[in-house]
C-alpha cells in the first residue's frame, strides 16, 4: 500500500519537473507552445497525405508506368480532386478523382477497378456526370461514402442490372439500347399494375406528366354468369395459372371460403345480357362428324395469330393478344361461345377480336372444336353448395377489399380511386419510409424486387396479389419502377425525350365502321394508331392495285411463307370487300408520289432483262425473295411471284430507292439503289404476273 503511494508521489514529482522544463519561464513557454503549434499545423497536410484517393491516384501512376501508352496516359493524367460540376442538373460528381481512366479507351485491357475506362454509351460523361445514371453520392471523397448507403445518404450505387432505369429518367421513347426498361414499361401496362397504382410518366408533353394506361383489357364481369360457371370462377380465383399458364391475372392466395364467397357474389351480381346469348346449344352442327374440320377452320381463320394454345407436346404456341385457349372448353358455356363467335362486339364492345362473318356451319364447327379443348382436372375437385345470403354479402366485402373493381367492371361496385400507392416517384422513395421484410437487403432495388416477387412476405394483410413472373420479368419491372425518380421529374425540358404520342385516328363513314367491325387496328397501324403485328397501311392505296386488293380481302393468301401470324379470312360479302377496297384506294395514298406515274407500257423487254440481272447478281434479291419458285428459296421478304399483279410500279420504284421512307418499320435494307437500277428492277418485277404451278408445299 505504502509502496503504491510512494510511486504516485514519484510520478507527480516527475510531472512537475517536466512542466518546469517546458513552461518554467516565459521564454521556455513561448518556445514550447510554438513547437506544439507547429506539430498541430503539420497534422492537416499529413492527414491529407493519407487520403484514400491520393493512394489510388499513385496506384494508377504505378499501373501505367510500364505500359506502352504510358507517355500519353501520364500527360493526360490530372492529379488532385477532380469534379464534374453541372449546375443546371445539380450535379457535383467527384468520381473522376479515383476513376481516373474513364476516358482512356486504350485502357480497355485493364479489368481492375477503379481504373477501367467507361464503356461506350451514347452520351458524353461531361453531359450528365456520373451519379445521374449510377446513383451513389457524387460529392463524397471516400470510397465507402460514395458507393454505399450511409446514414446520411440513402442512395447507394445502382446495381448494374438496373442501370437502364436511369435512361428512363429522360427517355419515354423506348430507345433500342434499353430493352429491359422498355420491356418493364410494357409489363407495367400489360399486367395491369397501373390499374391499381397511379403512375405519371414525365412525358414532357403535359406539365404534370401523363398517366400510364393499362393495356391488359380485363373482362367486364357484369354478365359473367352467362359466360361461365361458378365452379370455374372458384377454380380460377384459387389459381389462375392452373387454367392458363400465360394468364396475367395474379394469384390472390385466397382461402377456399373466400373464393367460395367471391364466386357466389360474382354470380349473384351478374345480369342477363339480353337476346344476344340464346340458350340454344348447337344440336350436332353439319360436318361435326369430321373431327378435323374444326381444327382446320381454327387454322384457316388464323386464330393462333392472337390466341395461344398448348399443342400435343405441351408447348404453348400462338399470339398473346387474346386469352390462351388450351382449356377454353372447361370455361365457357356453349351458348355464350356460339354468340361470341357470331359477333363478339355484342358481348364486349371493347374487345380486340374482329367480327368474323362465319356461317352457321362454320360457327358450329369452330364452337365444337373449342369446346373439345377441356381439362377435366381443372374443376374436378370443386363442389359448391348453393350460396347463402351471408356468403354473397361476404363476397361483396371481399371484392371491395381486394379492389377487384380496379380492373374489372362489376355491378354495384364503384371503381376505387388510388386503390394502391402511387408509383410516380417510387424510384426516389426514402428508405426511412419503407418497412422492410426480414431478410431483404436495405436498399430500394432489393425492396422492389422482393415486393413484386413475394408481396405477402411483407405482411399477410398486404393487398397486393402475387403475380406469376419470370426472373427477367421482375428485373424489367424493377428497372421501369426505378426510372420513376424525383430527378427525372425535375430534369430540364430540353433533355426529355417524349414518347410517341398516341393517335386517336378514326377512319370515316361506312368503311370506317367496317374497319372497326373487323378490328383492323388490332393488327395493322394507320396514321400512328394500331398494332404492329401486320404491315402499316397508311400508304396502302398507293402501294397496291385495286383488283388485287379486292381479291385479297375476300380471300387472303399467304404473302410471307415464313410468318406464323397471318391475315385471317373474314368471309366478307362482295359489297363489303368493294367498299373497303374503294376506301383504302382513295384515302390511303402517300403524298410522296403519284401511284399512276410509271405505267407498265413504259418498260421495254431490255429493261426487264437488265432488271433480272440486277435482281440475281448485283443485289442478290433471291436471298430473301422468291420470284421463280423452282430456283429461288429466300423467304424473309414476301414472295414476289405475282408482285406485278399486286403492287403499283411507282410504289416498287420508290420503295426500292428508300424502303424506310415508305414503310419505316420494314427490314428491307436501304441500298441506295440508283434511279436507273430501280427502274430496271421495277420493270422486271412488274413482269411477274403469273403464279407458276405450286411446288409440293412449303419447306
Amino acid at each position: 500500500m505504502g509502496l503504491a503511494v510512494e510511486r504516485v508521489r514519484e510520478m507527480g514529482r516527475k510531472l512537475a519537473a517536466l512542466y518546469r522544463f517546458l513552461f518554467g519561464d516565459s521564454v521556455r513557454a513561448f518556445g514550447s507552445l510554438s513547437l506544439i503549434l507547429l506539430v498541430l499545423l503539420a497534422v492537416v497536410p499529413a492527414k491529407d497525405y493519407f487520403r484514400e484517393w491520393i493512394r489510388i491516384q499513385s496506384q494508377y501512376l504505378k499501373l501505367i508506368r510500364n505500359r506502352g501508352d504510358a507517355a500519353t496516359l501520364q500527360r493526360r493524367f490530372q492529379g488532385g480532386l477532380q469534379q464534374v460540376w453541372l449546375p443546371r442538373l445539380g450535379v457535383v460528381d467527384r468520381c473522376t478523382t479515383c476513376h481516373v481512366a474513364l476516358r482512356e479507351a486504350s485502357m480497355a485491357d485493364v479489368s481492375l477497378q477503379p481504373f477501367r475506362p467507361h464503356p461506350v454509351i451514347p452520351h458524353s460523361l461531361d453531359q450528365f456526370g456520373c451519379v445521374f445514371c449510377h446513383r451513389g453520392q457524387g460529392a463524397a471523397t471516400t470510397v465507402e461514402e460514395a458507393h454505399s448507403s450511409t446514414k446520411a445518404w440513402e442512395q447507394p450505387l445502382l446495381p448494374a442490372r438496373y442501370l437502364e432505369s436511369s435512361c428512363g429518367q429522360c427517355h419515354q421513347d423506348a430507345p433500342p439500347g434499353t430493352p429491359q426498361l422498355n420491356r418493364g414499361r410494357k409489363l407495367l401496362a400489360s399486367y395491369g399494375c397501373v390499374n391499381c397504382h397511379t403512375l405519371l410518366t414525365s412525358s414532357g408533353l403535359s406539365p404534370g406528366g401523363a398517366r400510364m394506361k393499362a393495356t391488359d383489357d380485363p373482362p367486364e364481369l357484369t354478365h359473367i354468369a352467362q359466360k361461365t360457371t361458378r365452379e370455374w370462377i372458384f377454380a380460377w380465383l384459387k389459381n389462375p395459372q392452373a387454367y392458363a399458364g400465360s394468364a396475367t391475372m395474379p394469384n390472390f392466395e385466397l382461402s377456399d371460403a373466400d373464393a367460395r364467397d367471391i364466386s357466389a357474389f360474382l354470380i349473384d351480381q351478374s345480369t342477363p345480357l339480353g337476346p344476344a346469348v340464346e340458350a340454344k346449344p348447337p344440336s350436332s352442327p353439319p360436318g361435326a362428324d369430321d373431327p378435323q374440320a374444326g381444327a382446320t377452320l381454327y387454322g384457316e381463320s388464323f386464330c393462333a395469330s392472337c390466341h395461344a394454345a398448348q399443342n400435343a407436346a405441351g408447348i404453348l404456341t400462338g399470339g398473346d393478344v387474346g386469352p390462351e385457349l388450351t382449356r377454353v372448353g372447361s370455361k365457357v358455356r356453349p351458348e355464350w361461345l356460339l354468340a361470341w363467335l357470331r359477333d363478339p362486339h355484342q358481348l364486349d364492345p371493347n374487345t380486340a377480336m374482329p367480327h368474323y362473318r362465319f356461317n352457321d356451319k362454320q360457327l358450329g364447327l369452330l364452337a365444337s372444336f373449342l369446346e373439345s379443348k377441356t381439362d377435366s382436372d381443372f374443376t374436378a375437385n370443386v363442389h359448391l353448395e348453393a350460396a347463402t345470403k351471408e356468403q354473397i354479402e361476404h363476397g361483396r366485402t371481399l371484392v371491395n377489399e381486394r379492389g377487384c373493381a380496379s380492373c374489372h367492371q362489376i355491378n354495384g361496385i364503384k371503381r376505387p380511386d388510388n386503390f394502391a400507392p402511387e408509383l410516380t416517384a417510387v424510384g426516389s422513395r426514402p428508405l426511412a419510409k419503407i418497412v422492410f421484410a426480414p431478410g431483404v437487403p436495405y436498399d430500394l432495388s432489393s425492396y422492389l424486387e422482393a415486393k413484386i416477387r413475394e408481396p405477402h412476405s411483407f405482411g399477410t394483410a398486404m393487398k397486393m396479389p402475387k403475380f406469376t413472373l419470370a426472373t427477367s420479368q421482375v428485373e424489367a419491372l424493377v428497372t421501369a419502377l426505378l426510372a420513376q425518380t424525383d430527378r427525372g421529374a425535375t430534369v430540364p425540358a430540353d433533355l426529355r425525350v417524349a414518347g410517341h404520342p398516341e393517335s386517336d385516328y378514326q377512319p370515316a363513314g361506312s368503311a370506317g365502321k367496317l374497319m372497326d367491325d373487323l378490328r383492323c387496328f388490332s393488327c395493322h397501324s394507320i396514321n400512328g394508331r394500331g398494332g404492329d403485328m401486320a404491315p402499316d397501311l397508311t400508304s396502302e392505296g398507293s402501294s397496291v392495285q385495286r383488283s388485287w386488293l379486292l381479291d385479297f380481302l375476300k380471300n387472303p393468301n399467304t404473302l410471307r411463307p415464313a410468318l406464323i401470324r397471318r391475315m385471317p379470312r373474314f368471309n366478307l360479302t362482295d359489297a363489303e370487300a368493294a367498299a373497303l377496297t374503294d376506301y383504302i384506294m382513295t384515302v390511303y395514298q402517300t403524298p410522296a408520289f403519284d401511284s399512276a406515274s410509271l405505267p407498265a407500257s413504259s418498260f421495254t423487254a431490255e429493261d426487264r432483262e437488265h432488271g433480272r440481272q440486277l435482281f440475281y447478281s448485283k443485289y442478290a434479291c433471291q436471298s430473301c425473295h422468291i420470284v421463280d419458285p423452282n430456283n429461288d428459296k429466300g423467304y424473309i421478304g414476301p414472295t414476289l411471284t405475282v408482285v406485278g399483279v399486286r403492287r403499283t410500279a411507282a410504289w416498287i420504284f420508290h420503295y426500292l430507292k428508300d424502303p424506310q421512307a415508305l414503310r419505316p418499320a420494314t427490314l428491307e435494307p436501304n441500298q441506295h439503289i440508283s434511279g436507273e437500277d430501280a427502274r430496271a428492277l421495277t420493270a422486271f418485277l412488274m413482269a411477274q404476273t403469273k403464279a407458276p404451278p405450286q411446288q409440293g408445299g412449303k419447306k
Partner: protein
Amino acid sequence: MRGRWLSFAALALVLPACHRTPDGKLDGKATAQPKAFGAGLVEMGGGLQAASVGTVLDQPLVVQVNDAQGSPVKGALVTFRAAGETILTPSSGLTGDDGQLSVTCQLGSSAGRYQILAATTDKSGKSVTLRLEEIALGYQQNLGRQLSDRYCSRCHDPESSAERVSNYDNLTVKPHTFTDGAFLNSVSDTDLAAITTYGGAARSKSAEMPSYGGTLSKTDIEALVAYIRAVASPPYRARGLIYASE
C-alpha cells in the same frame, strides 16, 4: 515456437471471419459432405450464354460428374468459383440422381467474359476441374444484339425458332454465324464495319449480304461489331498497342 502457436490462433480467428457469402451475410451452413466421388466433370448446358451485365442468366449452368466408365455419379460434391461479382447460387452442392448439379448464375457488373471454375474431387482426393465461360454484354454490345436479332440473325443464325424461320439454308454462300470466332476474329473491325455498311460485294464477299449503310447508322454498326466481338468463340482478343520497332 510460441510465436507460431500464436499466429495459428490468429489465423483460426481471422479465416472464418473472412468467409462470407457475396451478399455480405455470414454463411451459416457448413459445406455438404460428398457421399460419392467421380472421375470426370462435364458441362451439360448453360455455358457461353450472353446476357446484360449484372443480370441472371436465363438458363442454369448444368454440370455432370461421371465415374471412370462415364456413368453419372450421384452425391458427388461440386464447388463453383467465379471472380468478381459473379454470383452462383448455390456455390456448391451434391449431384442429384442423374449425376447433375444445376446452379443459377448472376453475371458481374462489367462487360466481358466471366470464367467459372467447377471442381470436384476424385477418390484419391485429386481435384477435377471444368472451366465454363459466360458473356456479359455492356450497353453497346446489348444494342448490337438488338440490331442483330432484328436484321442479321435470320440469315446468320442457322437455328430456327417457333417465331422465326432461319433463312440460312436458302443462301448459296453460307453466312458466318456470329459466334464463329475462328473466322471472324481474323477480320478487322474496319472490314466488318465495311462489309456491313457497303455489302458483301464491296469486300469481294457474296452479294447476298446486302449493304446496311443506308439503314443502320455508324453507331449501330459499331454496336454490331462490338456484339460480334463479345460472342465470338474462341474469344476475340483486341490487338493491343502495336509497338514501333527500335
